[in-house]
């Protein structure tokens, strides 16, 4: 790391340009995700009236209102006074400025007495309370028209999350996703580890052929499998008189689709374990089963972890396998499917879409940031699969 930066320093672009361009790239890559995160905690009316990037600064709006009508005036010595608040009950914000003519809605700053002429003075404090005095009785029957520039502080809420988790089926989909993902991550590891051990440390005819087949199968597109498997599943379902869309069915599908990469990654790692350890265990009379369980499995932890993360991300984020093998019924939808369905039914409701999207991506993001090291290692070890 240090040596590379040293060597590139000699290569030499001005350092500042490097810093600025990396900063620009980082911002560019972060902004899309930030956008939905911020939007998901905004008030649903504010989402539709202003861009999410404005939500941190208080938004200022110009509005019209009326002061209290003359009948509410009190007499204080020679002058008459009307007091009150320009805000209605429950309304909040900070008054920045005010005016009495529509052409100049922000003529006077808040907090300072404004001379309106004809002996009238109006003071509006920033909290909305006002004092309106006149050196004689007020005339007319309606309150004076005023114009206000009001700043509303940014308002954030978790209501959107409540809505999607309970009302939009995202909570249910979350559990469905977990039900699909956890076994579909653990089962292939077990099966692939046994196979990888056999392909690394046991000799039998056809080993090289099986390894070549595994490497070849890594890139076989999922699309090739869909039609025959769908037919097969339907036949099996008919045969047993049950639905063809079961959790067991999708676990097996994910297990099988992840299997080539799993075997490839694990075999590369397990074949690289020191020969001496395994041979001395054999000399001591350990069976292959014992060697695998007690020596190979613990030693292969980094590779197992790398693959587990891959498989977890792939299964959690998968849409195609889920909609084909688990169906699109409301109680069977996984998170990606539910989100896709919401895009259709709630196309413009960004408070629902963004909150749902964030629920969908939060688990993989946590896994990603927590276990990035293993993910990178896995990528470097087996960058041949195309997802």
């Amino acid at each position: 790391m240090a040596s590379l930066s040293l060597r590139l320093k000699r290569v030499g672009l001005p350092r500042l340009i490097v810093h600025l361009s990396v900063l620009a790239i980082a911002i560019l890559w972060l902004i899309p995700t930030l956008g939905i995160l911020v939007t998901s905690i905004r008030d649903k009316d504010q989402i539709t009236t202003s861009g999410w990037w404005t939500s941190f600064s208080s938004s200022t709006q110009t509005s019209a209102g009326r002061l209290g009508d003359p009948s509410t005036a009190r007499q204080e010595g020679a002058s008459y006074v009307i007091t009150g608040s320009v805000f209605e009950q429950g309304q909040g914000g900070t008054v920045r400025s005010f005016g009495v003519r529509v052409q100049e809605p922000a003529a006077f700053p808040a907090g300072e007495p404004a001379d309106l002429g004809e002996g009238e003075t109006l003071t509006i404090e920033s909290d909305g309370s006002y004092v309106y005095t006149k050196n004689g009785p007020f005339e007319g029957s309606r309150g004076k028209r005023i114009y206000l520039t009001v700043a509303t502080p940014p308002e954030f809420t978790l209501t959107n999350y409540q809505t999607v988790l309970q009302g939009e089926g995202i909570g249910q989909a979350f559990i469905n996703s977990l039900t699909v993902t956890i076994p579909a991550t653990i089962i292939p590891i077990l099966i692939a580890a046994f196979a990888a051990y056999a392909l690394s440390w046991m000799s039998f005819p056809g080993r090289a052929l099986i390894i070549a087949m595994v490497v070849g199968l890594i890139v076989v597109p999922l699309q090739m499998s869909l039609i025959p498997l769908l037919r097969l599943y339907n036949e099996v379902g008919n045969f047993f008189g049950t639905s063809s869309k079961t959790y067991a069915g999708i676990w097996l599908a994910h297990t099988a689709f992840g299997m080539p990469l799993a075997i490839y990654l694990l075999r590369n790692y397990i074949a690289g374990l020191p020969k001496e350890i395994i041979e001395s265990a054999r000399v001591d009379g350990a069976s292959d089963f014992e060697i695998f369980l007690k020596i190979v499995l613990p030693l292969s932890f980094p590779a197992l972890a790398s693959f587990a993360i891959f498989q977890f991300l792939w299964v959690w984020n998968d849409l195609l396998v889920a909609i084909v093998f688990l169906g699109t019924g409301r109680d069977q939808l996984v998170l990606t499917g539910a989100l896709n369905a919401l895009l259709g039914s709630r196309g413009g409701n960004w408070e629902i879409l963004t909150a749902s999207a964030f629920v969908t991506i939060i688990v993989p993001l946590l896994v990603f940031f927590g276990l990035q090291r293993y993910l990178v290692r896995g990528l470097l070890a087996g960058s041949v699969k195309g997802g």
Partner: protein
Amino acid sequence: MVSQIVSAVGVMIVGVFVCALYYWLSDKVLNLALPVRDGDVTQASRNLNRRAVIRPWLFLGPALLLLGIYLVYPVVATLILSFYDRGGQTFVGLANYRWAFFDAGFRQSIFNNILWLAVVPAACTFFGLVIAVLTDRIWWGNIAKSIVFMPMAISFVGASVIWKFIYEYRGAGDTQIGLLNALVTMLGGNPQVWIALPFWNNFFLMVILIWIQTGFAMVILSAALRGIPEETIEAAVIDGANGWQIFWKIMVPQIWGTIAVVWTTITILVLKVFDIVLTMTNGQWDTMVLANLMFDWMFRGGGDSGRSAVIALVIMAAVTPIMIWNIRQANRDAGGH
């Protein structure tokens, strides 16, 4: 809700347990069936040999069974189905292939797939390489790398929602809440319905995949760059090469193999792109690609397995050269051991 969690956990435990039980039990059965603790030494050693012959297949059994059912058999079955009618009952010869050849939707999909293939792998590799070079030079480079790498963890569907929000369109007079249209109006342009602009909308969808995959390219290429021997660059510096020349003539040629791996990996991914198109446009406005067309034909009007099989085979044919190259490479590595 609670009952679903309980039953889910229960089913999970049973599923994993059954799987573990198989290995344990099959090993036990093998040992019992071929005992070695008899007095008869020749029998014992014969049994030991038999165990050694059988055991690999017990270990490999479930994996091979799954690969066979879920990947090998379907490849053959899809090939056969492509010669049959929509229900898979009547042999129709090359009719499905003929249909594909003359179908406008199919041609549109091929065209779009080629467009994706031309742009996405190149863009990901290029950006990945540039970011890898830049971030390796600064102290907070790892943070920047994490940020660029992060979209890898986001599902295509999630990413589509994220970008659909960026492309969101409001009428010309309204406040734009989509970032892109807000920028365009700020610069004095007219807001557009980006994902419904034929031809160009393909590129707006590609941006999503580039956003996701650049991190992958960056990680792999960054590791390769670190593996470049120091001396080669020092020699170039001494010879008076400038930064640009060192990058293109010294560094890039040395990581050519890695670039090829990154390129092909992303190429395979692009050939299978499905989720993004499904969620963004569902193939409308001329954005259809092969994987989506295939999915469409799988279910459209009760499904047409013949046509859909032909489309799957086209994707398979495009992947095959890479597959052969990978197998050769793996065999060469194995030979080198």
